[in-house]
């Protein structure tokens, strides 16, 4: 295929987001505010890392890439294409929940669109992932609505979290200047601009039910850079920790 480089670019940015956010979600294990939330974030971590693995496997098996484990654990920071949104530390629970809501809704519109992809491995994977994501968005929507309707302090915190997270979340939809036109022309996916639009339509009704005000999207500046290898100061320490065991002996068989 002539557009292998474009496909790889898209897969890597999707997979890296899943891997890094999966890692962040797993940091709630043992620390969740209530037991069910501890379990929820741990389960979602497992799902995300599973989705990353499935994407890295497509790279490996269909596009001649490296073995998923090596690709995930040995790459340099610069070679990662994760968005800044997923790299940030968990902070308070309001930020983690808001990030989860904005990211998983974005992921949902993306996988929905991939059901019609011209790239067959995307069609197969998206069917599987889409069903699983239902539970992520069910969880996210429920908590966003409940906490926003739970009193003054709670509402204020959720609104602040939304205000602080929206530009970062918009950064998920950073198109690759080199490959975007090819991917759209080849009908691999509808393109970041279209997904950005669908995502806003998806999150809006939940925000309305939560009485949260979506900032004027025309005034925000999406936080770009991650897709081009420019990262926050938080990614490198995360990569070091994540690959600590693997890098003790990269040839070991687990």
């Amino acid at each position: 295929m002539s557009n292998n480089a474009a496909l790889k670019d898209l897969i890597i940015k999707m997979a890296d987001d899943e891997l890094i956010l999966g890692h962040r979600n797993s940091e709630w294990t043992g620390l969740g505010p209530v037991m069910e939330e501890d379990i929820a974030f741990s389960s979602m971590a497992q799902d995300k890392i599973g989705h990353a693995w499935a994407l890295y496997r497509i790279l490996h098996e269909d596009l001649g890439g490296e073995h998923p484990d090596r690709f995930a654990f040995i790459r340099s920071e610069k070679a990662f294409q994760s968005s800044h949104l997923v790299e940030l530390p968990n902070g308070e629970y309001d930020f983690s929940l808001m990030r989860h809501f904005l990211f998983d809704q974005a992921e949902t519109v993306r996988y929905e669109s991939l059901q019609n992809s011209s790239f067959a491995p995307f069609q197969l994977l998206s069917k599987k992932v889409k069903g699983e994501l239902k539970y992520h968005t069910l969880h996210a929507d429920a908590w966003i609505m409940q906490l926003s309707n739970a009193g003054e302090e709670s509402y204020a915190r959720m609104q602040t979290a939304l205000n602080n997270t929206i530009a970062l979340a918009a950064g998920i939809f950073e198109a690759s200047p080199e490959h975007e036109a090819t991917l759209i022309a080849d009908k691999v996916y509808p393109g970041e601009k279209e997904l950005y639009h669908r995502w806003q339509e998806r999150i809006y009704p939940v925000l309305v039910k939560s009485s949260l005000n979506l900032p004027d999207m025309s005034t925000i500046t999406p936080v770009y850079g991650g897709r081009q290898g420019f990262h926050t100061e938080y990614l490198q320490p995360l990569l070091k920790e994540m690959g600590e065991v693997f890098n003790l002996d990269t040839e070991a068989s687990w």
Partner: protein
Amino acid sequence: MSQTISIAAVYESLEHVMDPEIPVLSVIDLGMITGVDMVADGVHIKMIPTFAACPAVSYIQHNIKTVVENELGIAVTVEIDKQVHWESNRMTDAAKEKLKNFGIAPPQILEGEVRAEIMLHTPCPHCGSEQTYLRSPFGSTLCRAIHFCKSCGQVFEQFKPLE
């Protein structure tokens, strides 16, 4: 020897391969087997995981190989079938009964997509009451959700419906 072994015998043997997380259900009960083919040097079995990130997949794959090889004395290869994806409607009625007796509510039959409403009033596996509510869509394993029964006052798990 392999000529005398039928596909039916392989399926029968597969009923003895249990799910490590729910040991009362076999890979047949769960609908995880998508194909059995007799090949020149043994049997080729195709399977699918329930959830994409199920950590037990390679363990189950290994169990299938070991059990069928031991019981039937033929070489077994097990492949993950990428053409088919698992949905909870694949679970047999017998499996749902076994699940309930094990204390886990079975998944509702799905017509179309999963909607939030389907997770309400899941019958309690302990007392049968439908006065229940969803406490969390995530439970002790990826395939389970946590509910609470208002009638008998117990928390229970459900094998959740999956499209």
